């Protein structure tokens, strides 16, 4: 079978193809800049402050666990991990519960204006929400709970989930539901029992991305959280003190924040990529 010029595999011919090697070198050169800073952060998390600020940079050093010890013991990071998880999970789940039916309806009934309205929520700059939300939530005595945080994160998650799922549902053929309906079942049951189960990939994509955006959110969490509900991105600033910045601790905290996100990404890699490309590519 004829292969596309860009589909030539790597095993053609038995002798070393220098062009192949050169190409692989190119790939490595492309990949390194993207991963290098992250590797540096991880390395710095195991260095002392003096080693981090040393110049020329120290590549070989004796790793220390002190930074991680500070992070978990002095600053109670376990609690922050829990807080971030609760908020991310809750806001994602609730957004799914609300967003999936909405996306279905917009997709099947071509409710364009509604779709646009939901997407407009993405356009407002985050700062405009801070003061009014604080006033609102404090009037109904909700500030000291996770609820306010979760609701604010949902405002970011919902449009995202709706947008991804609209495009996903658009790509699913209508025959499945139509045959179900012919057999006498209602639209909502067709949605629940037929469509959702096969929407696994789209849902996983939406869930992962929504979780990530909530996990990394800084602004809303700063204003709406108290000591009980402080989330990770705020906590990283715990090490930026009045008279010193403990870089080692900051980097260790960064590792603690980034690792779950990376693990999640690794597990759902295929779906995350699909989610990002949905809406940009047909089919």
């Amino acid at each position, binding site marked *: 079978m004829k292969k*596309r*010029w*860009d*589909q030539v*595999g*790597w095993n053609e011919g038995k002798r070393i193809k220098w062009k192949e090697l050169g*190409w692989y070198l190119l*790939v490595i050169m492309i990949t390194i800049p*993207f*991963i290098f800073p992250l590797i540096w*952060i991880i390395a710095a998390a195991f260095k002392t402050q003096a080693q981090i600020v040393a*110049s020329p940079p120290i590549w070989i050093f004796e790793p220390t666990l002190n930074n991680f010890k500070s992070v978990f013991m002095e600053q109670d990071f376990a609690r922050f991990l829990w807080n971030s998880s609760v908020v991310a999970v809750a806001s994602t789940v609730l957004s799914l519960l609300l967003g999936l*039916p*909405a996306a*279905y309806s917009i997709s099947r009934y071509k*409710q364009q204006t509604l779709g646009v*309205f*939901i997407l*407009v*929520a993405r*356009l*407002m700059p985050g*700062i*405009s*929400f*801070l*003061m*009014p*939300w604080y006033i*609102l939530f404090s009037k109904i005595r909700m500030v000291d709970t996770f609820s306010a945080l979760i609701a*604010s994160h949902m*405002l970011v998650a*919902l*449009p995202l989930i709706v947008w991804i799922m609209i495009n996903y549902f658009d790509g699913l053929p209508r025959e499945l539901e139509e*045959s*179900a309906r012919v057999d*006498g*079942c209602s*639209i*909502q049951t067709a949605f629940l*029992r037929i469509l959702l189960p096969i929407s696994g990939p789209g849902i996983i994509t939406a869930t992962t991305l929504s979780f990530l955006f909530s996990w*990394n959110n*800084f602004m809303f969490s700063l204003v709406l959280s108290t000591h009980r509900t402080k989330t*990770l991105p705020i906590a*990283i600033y715990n090490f*930026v003190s009045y008279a010193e910045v403990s*870089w080692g601790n900051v980097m260790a905290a*960064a590792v603690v924040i*980034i690792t779950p*996100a*990376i693990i*999640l*990404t*690794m597990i759902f*890699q295929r779906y995350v*990529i699909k989610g*990002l*490309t949905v809406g*940009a*590519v047909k089919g």
Partner: protein
Amino acid sequence: MKEVRLIKAAPAFTEVITLSAKKPFRVNQLIEKNIKWLFPLPTGLFIFLMMIFPVLYTFYVSLTDWDMISGGRISFIGLDNYVNLLKEPRFFNSIKLTLYFTIMAVGIEVVLGVAIALILNRDFRGKNLVKLILLLPMVATPVAIGLAWTLFYEPTIGLGNYALKLLGLPASQWLGSSKMVIPSLALVDIWEWTPMITLIVLAGLASLPQEAFEAALVDGATPLQIIRDVTLPLLRPTILIALVLRCIDALKTFDIIYVMTTGGPGFASETLNIYAYNLSFNYFRFGAASAALVALFTLVLACNLLVLWMRKTYEL
């Protein structure tokens, strides 16, 4: 219980019918008839409630002179804030910088992203690993990334100048130079988001029709000609969407600029979003800040309308 019967039932449709027989027939019908409203209602309502107050509030405050400096009195001053904004050089500076940052960052991201996608567009061992690595800058917390890059950019002890020295290039002041600060910030954005463009384009490439390429090969075209005359034109809608999506988010960039320079040195990196932040939480001039936020919202809205318009023109 009817549930048990469900799970034991074999074909999908029988399950379905059993379930619907469980609910009272009238409620079911009611739901079905109004599903067009019922399904989107919770979402629409939630978003409306969460947004309506902030939106109205911001517009309202932008028409007042609310200012904690004068003790928090609020009086209505109409469009004065907007007029003052238009007279304020820092406002125009911030718009200029916002556009400069966005165009530079997104421009390079798209060119680089497409180039990398074209290079990586073949099956090879480790392709998934490479894709995974490319995903990582996007999922890393911006606040953490900003702090790390600040260290990289330190002119004396940072890795940035160390790398330049190794390459034989002159050292740069990076974030400390009024000229270099926006490019330095753009570099961080490029590092974070080029992978997204690459991945979008890779997916697009995978769905391009084979025939065009085969025809070109038959005609004896060189790879470069193929890229220029076949691949890129076919990719245009994909690239366009990716480009505009990035633009919207780039216009609103906040976290990395806040962490790395808060608008400095001087005001050389004060984008509109940062300017609004400074007005709110550094100067406590909420009236003026709200006007700036409305301006930012308008800017982003304009770009979003551009998306919709381009999508209509290029995809149907």
